[in-house]
């Protein structure tokens, strides 16, 4: 109470929307009247923008619990002759606070006063008087200020931060051709706060802050198992996937990932579970056609509401927006299973660090909602090797299934292995599988072949233990790799 908070950001960083949302929530959720003083945009524009966010403010304006004071520059000739003060503005605010019983006053933006009045010394003095008055009135104050650079002086005029106890900085930075909004609490007098920048997005519902790294691993775990849709794979994983686990299917292009995702989806729908499928590599018709060709009745399930397929280009928006979108779909559809094909497609859109944040946010959200989730990841090489995606997300996922091509005697064959299964025993062998019109068939383990996963497979006709050794070696390699790559 009575503590001014500064929200500073460059133009277009979301200061006005942010402060409007605070006002709106104060009035609607906490029954605390508020006064919004607009010094830059005309009040009609503010009201229009608010309505575009889907917020109905008319009744609060009518009831007088929300007051918008229009102090934007008027299109009339205004000249200065000698000394003046801003008692008019102070009077307006004092009157509005008194009439509405407001607990919150927003000044958007104080710096605009410098544009309206040429005498900077007077404006500076009056800004001090305004904040003093607001402190005396005992209302919480939000001051917005414009800054010229994303990293530099807190505010353009250098006055606002001196009158504020708390400083929040909003940024809108271009990285890899994508705009990324972040919020940072820079100063919070006498209180603990999270440090650093957190991404947020602005959409029709308002602002959503995504404190990804602040998420805690508090998910309860479940011992219920769900079928992967393939009985042999269920056996290999020791009885199927845990209900709240996230598993990663990694494989080269054409390696059977989408089929596996489809089988997993089908297993869910057949059991009467709701499945949300997010496809980032294929269009909806393409995906449905492929599913039909494997004999999976996606269209039927979609029609009776068990399945929802969402297709989107990774490039369509930033990762924060994707994450928010996924969360919205989950909230809305309330699925039991989540399928993402493929997570690695998102790698294209953003730098590695943001991608990792995205995956952490996504997996922790999926676990929070107790979704049995299958993510696919495309490995860059046809055989062996691992990808950035795996290096960054394999520690977060609960199970990893590798699909790899194996060249034996000039013929490409397919191999599958479970390399990680948290909290359960699993088969360690590398088994061969085939794909035909009725789906995936997992057969016998490969014999006399090494290096299936590590790189170039070679035939070992009498060294039976070679395979075992290669796998062990690979396993070690994989784990050291992870530690190296994961900072």
């Amino acid at each position: 109470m009575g503590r001014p908070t500064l929200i500073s950001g460059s133009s277009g960083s979301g200061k006005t929307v942010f402060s409007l949302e605070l006002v709106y929530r104060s009035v609607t959720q906490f029954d605390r009247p508020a006064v919004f003083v607009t010094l830059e945009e005309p009040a009609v524009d503010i009201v229009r923008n608010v309505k575009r966010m889907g917020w109905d403010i008319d009744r609060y304006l009518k009831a007088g619990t929300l007051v918008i004071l229009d102090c934007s520059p008027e299109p009339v000739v205004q000249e200065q002759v000698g000394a003046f003060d801003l008692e008019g503005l102070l009077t307006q605010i004092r009157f509005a606070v008194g009439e509405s019983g407001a607990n919150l006053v927003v000044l958007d933006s104080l710096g605009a006063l410098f544009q309206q009045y040429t005498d900077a010394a007077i404006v500076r003095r009056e800004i001090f008087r305004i904040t003093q008055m607001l402190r005396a009135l005992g209302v919480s104050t939000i001051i917005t200020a414009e800054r010229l650079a994303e990293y530099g002086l807190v505010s353009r005029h250098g006055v606002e931060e001196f009158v504020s106890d708390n400083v929040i900085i909003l940024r809108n930075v271009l990285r890899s051709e994508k705009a990324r909004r972040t919020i940072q609490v820079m100063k919070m007098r006498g209180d603990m706060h999270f440090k650093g920048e957190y991404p947020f997005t602005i959409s029709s519902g308002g602002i959503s802050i995504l404190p990804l790294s602040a998420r805690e691993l508090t998910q309860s775990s479940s011992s219920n198992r769900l079928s992967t849709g393939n009985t042999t794979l269920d056996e290999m994983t020791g009885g199927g996937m845990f209900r709240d686990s996230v598993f990663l299917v990694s494989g080269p292009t054409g390696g059977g990932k989408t089929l596996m995702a489809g089988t997993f989806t089908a297993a869910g729908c057949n059991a009467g579970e709701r499945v949300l499928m997010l496809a980032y590599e294929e269009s909806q018709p393409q995906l449905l056609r492929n599913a039909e060709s494997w004999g999976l009745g996606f269209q039927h399930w979609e029609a009776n509401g068990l399945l929802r397929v969402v297709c989107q280009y990774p490039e369509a928006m930033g990762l924060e927006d994707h994450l928010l979108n996924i969360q919205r779909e989950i909230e809305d559809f309330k699925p039991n299973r989540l399928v993402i094909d493929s997570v690695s497609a998102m790698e294209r859109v953003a730098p590695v660090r943001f991608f990792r944040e995205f995956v952490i946010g996504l997996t922790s959200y999926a676990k929070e909602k107790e979704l049995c989730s299958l993510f696919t990841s495309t490995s860059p090489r046809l055989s062996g090797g691992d990808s950035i995606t795996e290096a960054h997300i394999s520690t977060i996922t609960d199970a990893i299934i590798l699909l790899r091509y194996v060249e034996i005697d000039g013929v490409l064959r397919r191999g599958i292995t479970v390399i990680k299964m948290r909290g359960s025993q699993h088969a360690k062998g590398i088994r061969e599988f085939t794909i035909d019109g009725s789906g995936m068939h997992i057969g016998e383990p490969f014999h006399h072949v090494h290096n299936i996963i590590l790189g170039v497979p070679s035939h070992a006709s009498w060294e039976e233990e070679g395979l075992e050794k290669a796998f062990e070696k690979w396993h070690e390699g994989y784990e050291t790799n992870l530690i190296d790559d994961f900072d």
Partner: protein
Amino acid sequence: MTDFFVTKLILKLFVSDFGPVPETAISGIKKILRENIGEQNYALEVINISKNPELAIEDRVMATPTLVKASPYPQVRLIGNFSDAGFVLRQLGLIS
């Protein structure tokens, strides 16, 4: 000179109790008007926003003192203590 003012000049002067005594601004502007355009050619309404704050909101007055030329069109707003008579008259369109 009086024939020149076809429409009467309607002015509003907004003052407050804060700061420099409002009387100075009021008597200052009255003096300028009396000496330059004559009593019968203008109407001046003095509004103390400390006593009538709702009028400050209605007329969107932020600075005090503010002199508003409400008529004839176009509206002109002058803020300050009106120390420069020539400037005030020029801005009000009374002299060129």
